[in-house]
């Protein structure tokens, strides 16, 4: 059965006025009397939709416009043009009702009271989101166990490590069981253990509660592990939309075959391949996927040489995305 769209965005546009000033004392003094403003198109005619229960990765380099889009989706910013329907609400017009149904985690901004234990903030959010005693206690117990923060929930936030604090931030954002969870760089600066805990947590609430997740991150391993689909934005425009596999199909044009030989192969000759390194017993062969299939090259290798081992690998998703950013930068 086709899942319903929970977010619908059509023709979204947002521009900002930016104040510009040259370097040096003269420019500084000049700017006191006369200022130069530049209009920046942060988001240009963007359209997309998100299905219920989906985990969408919203990616882009710094300044690409992803945070602006997220802020419009969460009702923080007013769009200049276009239409957004999230859970059938126009986020900026019906902000108070709408935000009751969403949760937001900003990796770089804490929503917890710094001097108080996280549990005090949770109690405040209980009132704010009108969570019943039963649901509050049940969810809190479940999440404390899942994120393994039993001992830290009663320690003042300023005494917590970044990993502990981030886990506490997550609880504050999902206690009310939001239908959509917006995550803005949720694993920034975390060690691998904390990252793992948070990823498991996201997967679990997505699977068990059907929470739709919109994730913006620069950590591609978050994307590979969590996202069903990704959108890449640059200079305010979408430059890719699809699954990780579709990204690979579109952008991966070579695969690498690492070959180990039983006997010295001598000079290696393979058509439509680049042999970029070889020594007496091994070689790295790059296959141009537009011209040849990997299995054909493997067959040719086995036919021509005595092979002891073979490893096929492709370009990492991180590298592909980096290449897409660079290509967009050149345009």
């Amino acid at each position: 059965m086709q899942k319903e769209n929970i977010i619908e965005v059509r023709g979204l546009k947002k521009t900002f006025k930016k104040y510009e000033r040259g370097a040096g004392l003269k420019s500084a003094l000049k700017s006191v009397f006369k200022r130069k403003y530049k209009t920046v198109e942060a988001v240009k005619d963007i359209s997309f939709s998100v299905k219920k229960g989906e985990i969408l990765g919203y990616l882009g380099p710094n300044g690409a416009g992803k945070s602006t889009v997220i802020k419009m989706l969460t009702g923080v910013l007013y769009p200049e043009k276009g239409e957004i329907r999230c859970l059938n609400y126009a986020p900026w017009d019906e902000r108070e009702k709408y935000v009751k149904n969403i949760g937001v985690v900003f990796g770089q901004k804490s929503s917890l009271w710094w001097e108080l234990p996280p549990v005090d903030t949770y109690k405040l959010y209980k009132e704010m989101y009108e969570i019943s005693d039963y649901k509050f206690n049940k969810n809190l117990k479940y999440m404390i166990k899942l994120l393994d923060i039993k001992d830290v929930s009663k320690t003042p936030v300023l005494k917590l490590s970044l990993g502990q604090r981030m886990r506490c931030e997550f609880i504050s954002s999902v206690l009310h069981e939001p239908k959509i969870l917006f995550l803005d760089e949720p694993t920034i600066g975390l060690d691998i253990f904390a990252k793992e805990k948070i990823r498991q947590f996201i997967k679990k609430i997505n699977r068990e509660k059907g929470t739709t997740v919109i994730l913006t991150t620069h950590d591609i391993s978050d994307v590979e592990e969590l996202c069903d689909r990704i959108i890449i934005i640059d200079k305010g425009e979408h430059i890719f939309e699809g699954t990780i596999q579709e990204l690979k199909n579109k952008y991966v044009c070579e695969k690498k075959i690492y070959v180990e030989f039983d006997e010295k192969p001598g000079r290696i000759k393979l058509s439509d391949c680049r042999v970029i390194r070889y020594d007496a017993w091994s070689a790295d062969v790059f296959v141009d996927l537009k011209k040849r299939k990997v299995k054909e090259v493997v067959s040719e290798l086995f036919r021509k040489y005595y092979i002891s081992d073979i490893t096929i690998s492709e370009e990492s998703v991180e590298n592909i995305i980096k290449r897409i950013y660079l290509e967009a930068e050149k345009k």
Partner: protein
Amino acid sequence: MGIKKYTAYIGIEFKHSISHRSLLIAKIVAIPLSIFVMVAIWNAIYLNNDAEIIGYFTKEQMVNYSILSVIGSYLLANRSDMELGRIIRNGKLTNELIRPNQYYLVQFFKSLGFRTADFVVAAPISIALGVIFFGFKQYDYVFTLMSVLSFSLSFLLIFLFNMIFGLIAFKVIDYDNFGWLKNTLVSFFSGGIISLSVFPLFFQNTMMFLPFQHMLYTPIRIFVGGYVLEQCILFIFVQAIWVVSMFFIMKFGWKMAVKNFSGVGT
């Protein structure tokens, strides 16, 4: 409206304010110290002046005015404009706008919570010292009740004025200097530094058309018996009109400011 989600801020902000023990201790010391200084100044002025009444006040009334103006300045003050400037600058306004509440109500209840600590700890100590050392006294139950009502309206008025003035923070990078400027002007024009009654009549008449005197001068003058009953009722009514007007100005200003908020880089 779901008032419980806002009143919860009183509790959390109270806990927050008493978690800074040094701040609480500093206030317990600072308020009586300020009272001692103000009373000493007025004692000196009355001692070197032949007139028994200065600016409609006897020496006893002026001492009481000074004690209440110091305590009132602390209890009624709130930093909602500075707080707004801070969260716009560090990007935390975004955190506020993703919550299912109205920011101005959150700030109002947070101010109440923060002042609760002062109200239950610092104010009684200061009043007790005022009674013991300077003969601070209550004049009349009716005037006391009316001044309590007037002080409550002052609290609202100061809060709303700060919220309106704080909207400047949406337009400037650093609001703090505007905040200090505003605090200085408000302290002076509200009678927080010197009773407005000692100024020339023209100045006093001009002040009648501005909201500042209703922030501190009006409730204190009611308390010390500086107005007759009819004047008290009239001034409380004027205070209420200012509160309602400022509420609508603040609501409109906030709506426009948030609509044009860009949040770039935050």
